[in-house]
């Protein structure tokens, strides 16, 4: 079978274009996707909408592997998109990786 199990990764920009502990957005047909960069230069991609009231997560403060939503301070895991602590909710996450300084995003 050709192309079996191959996920398509799209080059969406350079890692250096995202500030460490910062985020940038990608406009897609599915809505905005936020790409976060940790201080260890890991990247994560979440839908740019807080599970609480759709706050733009890309504008929050990134710490460890979480982001604090700018609207009402929910803390969202960058890895799973799940709200942390007592809050309940989840935002979709996407596969993303860095290769040779480029950020590669995979959309379902």
């Amino acid at each position, binding site marked *: 079978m050709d192309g079996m199990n191959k996920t398509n990764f799209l080059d969406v920009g350079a890692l*250096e274009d995202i500030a460490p502990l910062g985020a940038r957005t990608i406009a*897609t047909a599915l809505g905005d996707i936020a790409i976060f960069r940790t201080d260890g230069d890991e990247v994560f991609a979440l839908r740019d909408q807080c599970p609480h009231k759709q706050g733009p997560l890309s504008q929050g403060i990134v710490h460890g592997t979480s982001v604090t939503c700018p609207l009402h301070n929910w803390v969202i895991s960058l*890895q799973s998109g799940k709200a942390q602590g007592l809050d309940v909710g989840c935002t979709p996450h996407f596969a993303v990786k860095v290769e040779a300084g480029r950020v590669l995003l995979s959309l379902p």
Partner: protein
Amino acid sequence: MNMMVSPRKKLIVIGNGMAGMRTVEEILHRAPGMFDITVFGAEPQPNYDRIMLSPLLAGDKTFDQIVLNSLDWYAEHKIELIAGESVTTIDRAARVVTGEHGTTRHYDILLLATGSNPIVLPLPGVERSGVMTFRSVADVEKMLETAGPNKSAVVIGGGLLGLEAAHGLNLRGMEVSVVHLMPTLMERQLDASAAHLLERSLTQRGMTIYTSANTESLDGEGESGPVHSVTLKDGSRIKADLVVMAVGIRPNTNLAKASGLACDRGILVDAAMCTSDPAVFAIGECIEHNKACYGLVAPIWDMAKVAADHITGLAQTQFTPIATGTRLKVSGVEMFSAGAFMGDETTDDIILRDAARGIYKRLVLRGEKLVGVVCFGDARDAGWYFQLLKDEESIAHLRETIIHGPVTASADPLEALACLPDTAEICGCNGVKKSSICTAIAEHGLKSVDDVRTRTKASASCGSCTNLVEGLLKLTLGAEFSAAGAKPMCKCTTHGHDEVRHRIKGGMLKTIPAVMQALEFHTPNGCASCRPAINFYLLAAWPGEYVDDAQSRFVNERMHANIQKDGTYSVIPRMWGGTTTAGELRAIADVVDKFNIPTVKITGGQRVDMLGVRKEDLRAVWQDLNAAGMVSGHAYGKALRTVKTCVGSEWCRFGTQDSTSMGVALEKATWGSWHPHKVKLAVSGCPRNCAEATIKDFGIIATEAGWDLHVGGNGGIKIRVTDLLCKVTTDEEVMEYACAFLQLYRMEARYLERTAPWIERVGLKYVQEKIVDNAELRRSLFEDFLYAQKFAQIDPWAEESACNTRGKKYDAMAELV
């Protein structure tokens, strides 16, 4: 025909490096006589320990000391070594390899161990002499030709290899700079905290470290002269007689690809180390297994065993990657990291920061298992941790004490403190002994570290003994102490706001990582609550010196506009003292039309709010407003917001002073200043108080005789009417008192504490003593304020719309629609 059938099979190894020869050793160990072995090596030397090139460069070892297998060894095992000839073709159909000098050999089994090649960035000037990589003995020899005292070297790349090169050249007497693209050194092996300590320790050795730095070109005389300097993207220039590029490695797949073997990033192998051709094995840095490539020897030793099992056919083992640990071979720097040291949402951290000894340890646990380790400053227990990590067994029983290592795994720090003799010195800066502190606590009923500071001076200077003082309080007061202790700033630390501020000043702490290290934070980079606070404290403490950290600002302060519930922003330009002009209003009207801004509103702060501006339009909106002379109103900041005024004596029939001009002057003097919370001023022209000055942080009310100065007012949820601070007569006094008050507040209040709760906490009397009674202090607070304003009064809108790199955050990174 004379058929000479060899009883032995023919094994050819391409690559006389660490992986290839280790496999040969493993094969000889399993089946000494099974193969006739030929080794091709591109390097002229016998097999040597590549890892030891760092000590070789540093002068700690000689080449003879790093040889792994001497020529005698090859002879003894009847291995034919063809050194100094690299293989150029493999004819897999005929099973023949050919070297660059024409040597040909036939094989039954072929082992590729071609290692990897250093990545060479295609920078302008890269071909100049003096530019080199760090991979082989030949590279080291080349470096040593140029190295020497009074010469300069630039190492591009602050990873393991780059730093070891830098260290070696530093020991050779060179002036060494390291240029690293990422914000922190060794980001693949260290978290930011450890990287910060590493940077400090390298800087102390005289190296200059440039982080977040990108190289533009390698320069020299004319087109082809030797390199003499390196230019960075930001324009800075560094002198360089030698440039070492250590930016990474790429598996060496050239030969494999050319001979039609399946390759991706590396030569593709299965768990038996077999390539797409069953007669060809591959091992070491040149391979790719399960999407991973390797750059350390530990997994290579495992590969060698597996390959030997399959090549001899004696066992059917499989290669499974195990966790690897990294140490930096820089003498005097103890560092170790392994496993998933960055942690994630499924892990917990145990962090130990011993600021005085420069120690940082972080253990990452998933459930009951240790999954990651970072040690800096003290790596004595690294081996123990690494074993626990590899064993993957529960460490639940060790959890309490594991951070202190296997030996201290039971000692209680309080007990240790209790055992110290009375004469032991606790505070080195002020020479305070244990007995003096304990006596003072008992005699004067001291309850907090601050009390101890005032009484004994212990921990009043650098503050690094604060933990010990706290311990003594705990010992002396028992349970009473925790009740009296300050509330921690947040879950990341046990220290309260005042303590953090005190330590920033006393300890000369100038960056967020430095604060987190010195105060022994338990999280790697804080949280959304402490980071903005620390960022503000640093900004207030070190004006003109501290570089603001945008990522530690709340969204509004980072975007210089207020975020709205739908993710759009509002824009409020300054209108000095609530005054405006036809030109400003016209410019606002034009902006509203041009950008289709849905709502325009007069704010409660006497200015105009444009609501619903799209993030992408912000910069263009600001540019237009700037062009009409307007600047940011900081309606989004923990900063000076508004100075409201009434019309005053210029027009009003009751007005006694020119409140409008006074308000404008105050706003011009104070705009741009950052504070623990928002700050609002108002000036009313008479006691009718139309500017509502008595619910402002600093309110001014004109009288016949001059001005009444009021402080600590607050509208909001919990309304508080101001207290009268004092009465003054001249405009100059108003300015001096207002600025001195703001400075006192900025320097002493806790983050997110407005003037009203601050004054309730410290008392009006305290403020009056400092601002009214003590003219000298008032004067110096005023001057400190003016000094800080020199760096603060830069319109963020103009700055953001002019700067392209900063502008990035307003736009999408890519559009996929």
